[in-house]
């Protein structure tokens, strides 16, 4: 009971006289001083780390600070408080003048306020502030950072702050401080410290050069693993995108033998369906859940378009692959133009749901975006479902039967025309799913499909026609090859090299990586 009373007493006291006064001289300088003095005042206030400083700085940048003689006031509407003591002031003194903040000061205050969040009791706010500072901070904030460092216990935030502090100390004039900072940076594993150390390696002072060299090597060693892992992830990610784009084609071309040049446009239709669903959901409170509807919707819309195409055009061209190629190309042109007419020629914006944005920091300096992880999982899921569909269901059995021997399948009573339609619809629907996935990571525009059509054909042909497993291996191989080459030679050259490689590969092995064994001369 006594304790409670005591707490109550302290509480009342803190309300009655709000905290001890903050540095009066600094506040006066901030309000009345010259430009440089004001910057210094901000630094001084920060170093003090008083919790009321934030409100004070906020007032300056919002234009709520006024002066009356030497007295500095924070005026909000009709209520005024003394900036130094924090006491309420009434009535308002006469002859007040506004404290004007220029842009430079506002910027400094903004930075200071961000840094001030380091002292916030909320972990997320602190983490965000630490991240912002790690990007590059003013040396004036060093005292504040050090103060925050003393209190900080969170394992995510502390190293960030240490890094920031070291990088600030690197810029200081004192040699010993710099050497200590360099040594500390050597223990970190962030790309920022590598940049800092790389700068220090060319320093005029020899001791610093040597120390920096040593630390740099240590950091690079740690970073190399992270980078390798990042490359691996990028490879898998690109591979799964290629896989999604090519899976539908593996069914329509690989199994049915239909050259569908409009495959890319079916992907585009899936992406636009996702866009429409997203727009519909934007007005509701369930925006984050729009993908739940967009995934089946894009499948159904693309599958329906595909089935109509099959019935109207492609059906008449079975057995004439070159004509199919031309006709489906014509279809693709018309689809592109209709989307342009409906949605305009410009790209449309598809917003990620909240859980797909951001990413996890798996290694030092390597952030794995959730959207990419989502696509890898999605691709695996789609692959698994197709596998089940083709091997465990009646439709799958029919599709495989018609592929292997159309006449015989017809003889035992399979309605081959209908199976064609369903299989084509399935392939198109998967293209739609690919479009839904692609809308989460890239631009959605009428030309979306054109950029994937060559890639998807390459994947299917490289993997070997008529084999889903081949498509998977091919997509992953090409994804890795592309990303690893990209690291060496740049994106465009990497792509060209991969294309030329496939061209030569097909000439060596026209049947692709995995071929269906047969004895036909024409195979």
């Amino acid at each position, binding site marked *: 009971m006594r304790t409670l009373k005591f707490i109550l007493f302290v509480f009342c006291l803190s309300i009655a006289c709000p905290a001890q006064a903050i540095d009066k001289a600094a506040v006066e300088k901030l309000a009345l001083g010259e430009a440089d003095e004001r910057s210094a005042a901000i630094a001084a206030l920060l170093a003090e780390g008083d919790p009321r400083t934030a409100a004070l700085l906020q007032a300056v940048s919002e234009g709520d600070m006024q002066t009356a003689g030497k007295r500095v006031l924070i005026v909000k509407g009709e209520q005024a408080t003394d900036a130094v003591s924090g006491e309420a002031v009434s009535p308002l003194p006469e002859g007040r003048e506004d404290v004007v903040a220029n842009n430079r000061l506002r910027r400094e205050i903004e930075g200071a306020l961000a840094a001030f969040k380091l002292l916030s009791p909320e972990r997320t706010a602190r983490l965000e502030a630490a991240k912002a500072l790690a990007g590059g901070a003013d040396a004036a904030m060093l005292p504040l950072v050090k103060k925050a460092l003393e209190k900080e216990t969170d394992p995510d935030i502390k190293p960030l702050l240490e890094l920031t502090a070291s990088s600030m100390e690197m810029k200081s004039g004192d040699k010993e401080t710099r050497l200590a900072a360099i040594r500390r940076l050597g223990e970190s594993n962030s790309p920022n410290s590598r940049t800092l150390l790389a700068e220090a390696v060319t320093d005029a002072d020899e001791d610093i050069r040597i120390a920096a060299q040593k630390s740099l090597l240590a950091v690079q060693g740690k970073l190399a693993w992270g980078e390798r892992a990042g490359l691996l992830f990028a490879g898998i990610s690109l591979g799964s995108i290629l896989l999604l784009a090519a899976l539908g084609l593996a069914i329509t071309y690989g199994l049915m033998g239909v*050259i569908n*040049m409009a495959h890319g446009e079916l992907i585009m239709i899936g992406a636009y369906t996702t866009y429409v669903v997203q727009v519909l959901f934007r007005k509701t409170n369930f925006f984050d859940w729009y993908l739940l509807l967009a995934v089946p919707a894009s499948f159904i819309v693309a599958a329906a378009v595909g089935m109509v195409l099959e019935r109207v*055009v492609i059906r*008449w*061209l079975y057995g004439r*692959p*070159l*004509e*199919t*190629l*031309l*006709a489906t*190309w*014509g*279809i*693709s*042109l*018309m689809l*592109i*133009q*209709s989307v342009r*007419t409906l949605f305009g020629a410009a790209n449309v914006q598809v917003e990620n749901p909240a859980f797909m944005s951001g990413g996890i920091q798996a290694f030092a300096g390597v952030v794995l975006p959730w959207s990419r992880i989502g696509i890898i999982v999605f691709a695996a899921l789609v692959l698994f479902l197709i596998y089940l569909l083709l091997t465990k269901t009646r439709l799958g059995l029919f599709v495989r039967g018609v592929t292997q021997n159309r006449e015989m399948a017809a003889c035992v009573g399979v309605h081959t025309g209908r199976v064609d339609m369903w299989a084509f619809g399935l392939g198109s629907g998967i293209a739609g799913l690919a479009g839904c996935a692609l809308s989460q990571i890239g631009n959605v525009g009428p030309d979306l499909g*054109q950029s994937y*059509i*060559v890639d998807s*054909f*390459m994947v299917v*042909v490289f993997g070997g026609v008529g084999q889903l497993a081949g498509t998977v291996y091919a997509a992953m191989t090409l994804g890795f090859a592309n990303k690893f080459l990209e690291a060496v030679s740049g994106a*465009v*050259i990497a*792509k*060209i090299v991969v*294309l*030329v490689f*496939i*061209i*030569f590969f*097909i*000439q*060596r092995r*026209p049947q692709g990586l995995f071929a269906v064994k047969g004895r036909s*001369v*024409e195979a």
Partner: protein
Amino acid sequence: MYGARGWAVICLSSFIVFVIFPVLSLATPQDSAFHISQYWVTLLGKVMCFAIVAIAMDLVWGYTGILSLGHGLFFALGGYSMGMYLMRQIGREGQYQSDLPDFMVFLDWKELPWAWWNSDQFWWAALLVVLVPGLLALVFGFFAFRSRVKGVYFSIITQALTFAAMLLFFRNATGFGGNNGFTDFKRILGLPITTPETRMMLFTFTAFVLIATLLLARWIVTSKFGRVLTAIRDAETRVAFCGYNTVHYKLAIFTLSAVICGIAGALYVPQVGIINPSEMSPANSIEIAIWVAVGGRGTLTGAILGAGLVNFGKSYFTQAFPEYWLYALGLIFILVTLFLPQGVMGLLKKKT
């Protein structure tokens, strides 16, 4: 080769393009009802270049059954070879008054890359126009035909080749002007390139090449060599079992076709005044196939007719209703493959 009627048509069209056209375009006053404007000279010149390409395509697709989606690449390579020469002909009249082409000054290059060696000589440019597409087709075709890549497979890998080349030419560092390509030409063979006289010379020369190509192609398809090509189209394995080495036949016609395309490209660039990597886009190569399909595969007249119909249609549509051109083109693709397997020539034959 041709019957009396065929020769008569050829002679008549030669008379029109070599005599009537130049007279009407150059010797008549601007406001005369018979005057042919520069617009029409350029448009017709362009279409004749396309007709040459269509004949080349018809030789490999219509007669030999190889659907190449790389002919846009050969066309562009010929165009780039000529474009290099035209760029050098600008001399110091470019924006930066340098010996180097403007885009190189822009990239801060100090000397010409190796590929530009000797590019100020016309004979060298003419040689490149033939050699570059020809060699590429020879090497690519050799590997492809030897390993019996055929049908749709061949179409897809030629498309990949074209796509890869387009990406390559889009890079600034490749040294061919990046995505702007070559333009702003001033002279050809020392003559200013924009005057009506030079344009008419280019026009008549294109017409000459078109007629020569037609006669050459006609001679090929009526020869024994041409018969074997048609046989390969209809039953390749049977031809091979009869003792013919089909690889040689296919390689020969593919290479010849690529060379013709290159020449057409070289004629196209000075008349249109620009060449850039978008000429290599896969869409362009497929469009070539549709010219032939519209006119009628396996007939040379059909190829010329198809190129003319589609391209005049295109220039009309893109001016009158630019929104609907892709619908029209798409519909042509679908309708021709579904209902007109013999093209317009098939229709005409049915009536007579």
